[in-house]
């Protein structure tokens, strides 16, 4: 496989092959944890950590892992990192852990991570695999933060919990509910595909 520079990997993960709005992956949590920017940031950080280190580990073990059991191995590695994140949140950020609820555990099922392990890490060296995982995690976080920015601003009148709109502003109740994430994410994908269409290969 052709070697790509770290910069190319980053730009692909963040934009041109963005997992959320280009590949439409990881939508479940994108809808569930985007009504407050603080929660979204932590969720994004957790996903970046898991994606980057899972890719790194899968890549480091790629030459000795028997290919017939590689998916089992990938799930084991991903699940272990997710549990590390979950335990760390419970111990040091209990409020955030409660707010994110089951969604931290559900990172295991996020298609982005397994997709990167299977599609990139198992055929590439550890460092590019790590950067690729990092880039995809960042791409996911960036889209989630954009959605959360709109939802928190219009739904609560605040950003990162700090009130920015005047009290006279009527909060858009729909924005704090799950359907709003569909509207905002849909609009985001529509804008991205209209103004920056994906180049046909």
């Amino acid at each position: 496989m052709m070697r790509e520079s770290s910069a190319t990997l980053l730009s692909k993960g963040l934009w041109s092959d963005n997992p959320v709005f280009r590949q439409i992956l990881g939508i479940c949590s994108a809808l569930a944890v985007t009504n407050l920017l603080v929660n979204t940031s932590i969720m994004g950080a957790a996903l970046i950590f898991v994606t980057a280190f899972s890719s790194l580990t899968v890549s480091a073990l790629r030459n000795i892992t028997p290919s017939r059991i590689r998916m089992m191995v990938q799930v084991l590695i991903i699940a272990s990192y997710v549990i590390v994140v979950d335990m760390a949140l419970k111990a040091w950020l209990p409020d955030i852990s409660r707010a994110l609820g089951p969604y931290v555990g559900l990172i295991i099922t996020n298609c982005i991570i397994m997709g990167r392990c299977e599609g990139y890490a198992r055929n590439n060296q550890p460092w590019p695999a790590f950067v690729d995982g990092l880039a995809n995690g960042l791409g996911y976080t960036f889209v989630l933060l954009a959605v959360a920015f709109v939802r928190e601003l219009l739904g609560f009148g605040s950003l990162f919990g700090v009130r920015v709109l005047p009290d006279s502003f009527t909060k858009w109740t729909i924005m704090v509910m799950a359907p709003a994430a569909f509207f905002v994410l849909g609009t985001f994908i529509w804008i991205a595909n209209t103004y920056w269409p994906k180049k046909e290969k």
Partner: protein
Amino acid sequence: MKKRLFSIVYMFFLTLVCTGALAALEMGTRERVALNATARLQRVILEVLALPVPADYSPRQVSGLFDNRVRETSLEGQRVFVGFDADGKTPIGFAFAATGPGFWGPIYGMVGISPDGERLIGLNFYEHNETPGLGGRITEDAFKMQFAGMPLEGAGGIFFSFGDIDNRPGVFEADAITGATETSVRVEKFLNRELALFVDKLRSNRLKIVNAALNQGGDKP
């Protein structure tokens, strides 16, 4: 055959390494996680007993304050927390857990009642699944604090109401949450029910509870 055997051995050792590392991490954080959970409930109890906890208190400090000022006892099988003045002898209030169904799932609340059993002194909801920004606003001060000082007169088991009460004597008129009628109605229902059950019991057993609590915490500073 050899390949198969290698796959099994490989998977076995990888699983061993992963679970071993996680078990070590779990042991390292277990105490902290347990303390977080305990301190969280203790903070809620202190708050409903009108014993303010500084926001920057660590879980350990919250537990310290709780041990100094609150003692737990039970009344007919129900847990009751008795708050004491700094002298450790004068009761400043009673707290009990009030739980009921919300719109999306159970709502767990804690209620503080004055030492004479005549007023509600604090209310908090510490666990719920209500919609953030709507029913979830039951945890906001604007909603909770309106109940502080509410007289517990009650008329036919109703202590407060969000609806049109036509100036019914003994019924406190509270403000519901705009846009969260379902949550408000459910809170009104279960909180009135829990209050009716507890207040009568409390009034006839006040001294007994205080004495039991004092004896229970006898060895504490």
